[in-house]
């Protein structure tokens, strides 16, 4: 998994759980477009984070706009919170001031 994608996902998940589309948009907006995740990268990245025990997932309710399919929400575990905090400096180094929440 690319370091930038992994670090960016951990940082945006610090601010609450999210699902695939939502996380793509949050990463894009909070890095001012410096990191753009897409279908080919975000789902494997989230699965990898889940396998590492850094995030957990849950299915939401089936939604009509998704043809009755549920969203899959991800949130950080305690281990993930620690990892995000530990990577905070690295993220600041990667993105500088592009993630305001991280640099504050």
């Amino acid at each position: 998994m690319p370091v930038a994608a992994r670090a960016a996902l951990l940082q945006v998940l610090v601010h609450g759980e999210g699902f695939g589309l939502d996380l793509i948009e949050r990463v894009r907006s909070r890095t001012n477009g410096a990191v753009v995740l897409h279908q080919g990268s975000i789902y494997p990245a989230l699965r990898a984070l889940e396998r590492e025990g850094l995030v957990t997932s849950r299915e939401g309710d089936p939604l009509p706009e998704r043809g009755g399919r549920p969203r899959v929400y991800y949130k950080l575990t305690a281990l993930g919170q620690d990892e995000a905090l530990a990577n905070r400096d690295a993220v600041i180094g990667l993105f500088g001031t592009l993630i305001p929440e991280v640099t504050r």
Partner: protein
Amino acid sequence: MTTFCGKPGPGPSWSVIVRQAADADPPWGIEDLETIAEHDARIGLQYCSWYIDGFGNQVTTRVNFKGRVPGDPYPEDEVLQPVPALALVAGVSLVGTVDRERAGLPPNVPSWAALLFRIVEHVVPKRVAGEQIGDALEVIASDIHHGRAKAWIALKVASTLFWVMVNATREIVGAALGRDRK
């Protein structure tokens, strides 16, 4: 009884009509397709040639066409064969009756896209399909709502199908190898 039509004369091909039927809201059923065939025959576009009855038998032409005697064979390459025709019409019916009405498919997502997703959904892990296709449907519905071009939508559908297959392959191979990648 189900009617299949070839394209013995001028006018849009049968596949075009099936596509129009699939894109209609609500999608047309078998009866609508039969009506179209009969109507177009009356105005001289010369469609239908034969139909398959409930027992799978090919039955003689039931609609007369300009310049063609009922029962005349049509050139082989102009007639949609029964199996692909059945697949097309069954696909339209499947999308129309299952996805939209029962599964609540977003009304502005093209039925052909829903059909493709539905086919893929049967061959990839449930979680991969549900998550990624669901997300894609949300994006596609939003893009259509914002007036994106049909070509863009088609590209979006194609890229979704590609990545769903790639990601599903990763999952399956990873599981088969018992790999727990860190």
